[in-house]
């Protein structure tokens, strides 16, 4: 494999493009220059730090450090899930549900790939485990946050319909089934759309990355297919568990709808 090596100096010229954006913002008074500056600095810092962290992890190949890195990734994912909700579940549940479901789904699917198909030595080698987990985590997170958002909003909107079903002797599962279906659909939609558009409209980042690194396109395609299948599985599993879990949380053992357990976003 051959690839064109980049030095930090090679990035100066492309970075000028961001400066150009800033100049545009100033000239056209878009008032974006501050946001742009912060985002650029964050991007550079985060990526360079991740680069060094991965270098360390790849050298260490320690199950403990790898697990810690995976844990931190899941924490950030669950924070992101909570931040994307218009209405929240109270207290620890909002974080717990998001973290639990991303960990369960992305973790299961990543382990599945590592143990059955890729089989690196050792199986937890961070060079394989962490990039896989990251890609699956990102997509699972999107599915879960969309599913939860649609679920809580539909429950508030469809309250009369849900309570009518409960009042007529329906169980909480019967009463919530229509909104659970909607939520599952929304959670899976981005993955289905991505699978339909991939190759025609978009070339996936990982595949292009491998091609740039000198991998034969058809080999890169096989890797990409593996990732897409894993993402589809992770998203389906994660969204299902999160939506069913949230549906249980907003009802109680007497099959009552507990809207008091959904907190509306207070900030505008």
């Amino acid at each position: 494999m051959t690839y064109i090596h980049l030095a930090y100096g090679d990035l100066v010229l492309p970075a000028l493009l961001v400066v150009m954006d800033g100049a545009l913002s100033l000239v056209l008074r878009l008032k974006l220059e501050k946001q742009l500056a912060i985002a650029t600095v964050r991007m550079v810092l985060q990526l360079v730090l991740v680069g060094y962290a991965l270098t360390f992890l790849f050298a260490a190949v320690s199950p403990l450090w790898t697990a810690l890195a995976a844990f931190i990734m899941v924490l950030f994912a669950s924070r992101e899930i909570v931040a994307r909700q218009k209405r929240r579940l109270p207290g620890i549940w909002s974080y717990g549900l998001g973290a639990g479901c991303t960990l369960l789904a992305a973790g299961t699917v990543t382990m599945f790939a590592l143990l059955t198909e890729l089989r690196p030595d050792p199986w937890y080698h961070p060079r394989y485990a962490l990039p896989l987990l990251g890609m699956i985590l990102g997509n699972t997170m999107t599915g879960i946050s969309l599913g939860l958002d649609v679920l809580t909003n539909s429950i508030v909107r469809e309250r009369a319909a849900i309570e009518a079903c409960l009042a007529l002797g329906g169980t909480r599962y019967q009463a919530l089934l229509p909104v659970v279906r909607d939520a599952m659909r929304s959670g899976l939609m981005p993955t289905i759309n991505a699978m339909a558009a991939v190759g025609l409209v978009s070339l996936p980042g990982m595949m292009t990355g491998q091609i740039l690194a000198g991998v034969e396109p058809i080999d890169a395609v096989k890797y990409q297919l593996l990732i897409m299948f894993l993402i589809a599985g992770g998203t389906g599993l994660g969204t299902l568990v999160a939506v069913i879990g949230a549906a249980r949380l907003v009802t109680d053992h007497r099959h009552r709808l507990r809207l008091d357990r959904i907190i509306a976003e207070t900030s505008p």
Partner: protein
Amino acid sequence: MLTVRALKRLHIFASFDLHDGECVALQGPSGVGKTLLLRSIADLDPNEGTVELDGTPREAMPAPDWRRRVTYLAAEPGWWSDTVQEHFTGWDDALPLVTRLGLPPNCGSWPIQRLSSGERQRLGLVRALILRSRVLLLDEPTSALDSTSAAAVESLIAEQVLNGTSVVWSTHDNAQARRVGSRVFLMNGDGEIEDNRP
């Protein structure tokens, strides 16, 4: 017999007995808590107190079973599917009641979106009636109806009461309360009910 003892929900506090084949009118100013009381009896909101049907406490059975026996009907009943008949397990059983309340027999295929509030109210009542519950908790069941339809509803419920169903009927219409209720419960601002026998 439905027995309610020290039922407590927010400011509401109520105790009463409701015999088989008895219809009680529930009255009181808007916002005083009539809906809260009816919902609590059906165990739709968290509440405290003892509610028993023929001596069996509601906690002794799963909540869905309780609500099939003690059924709450909202003033604006909700709908979870697209067409009318999807909301009925046996549409053929419902048809005689549907036509009695002045709706055409072909309304089963009507989309819910197209129904007027009066049509929704009558169909919601039929949907609850075919459960043949022991106790009906009716929350202003004729609030969206003209006098002809309201009279049809009153006679239909009266028949159920004759057959042994117990009813709590919340209404703002004093004349209706005296027509349908053998007793009138008046709920006051403190959330307590006064039992007024005629």
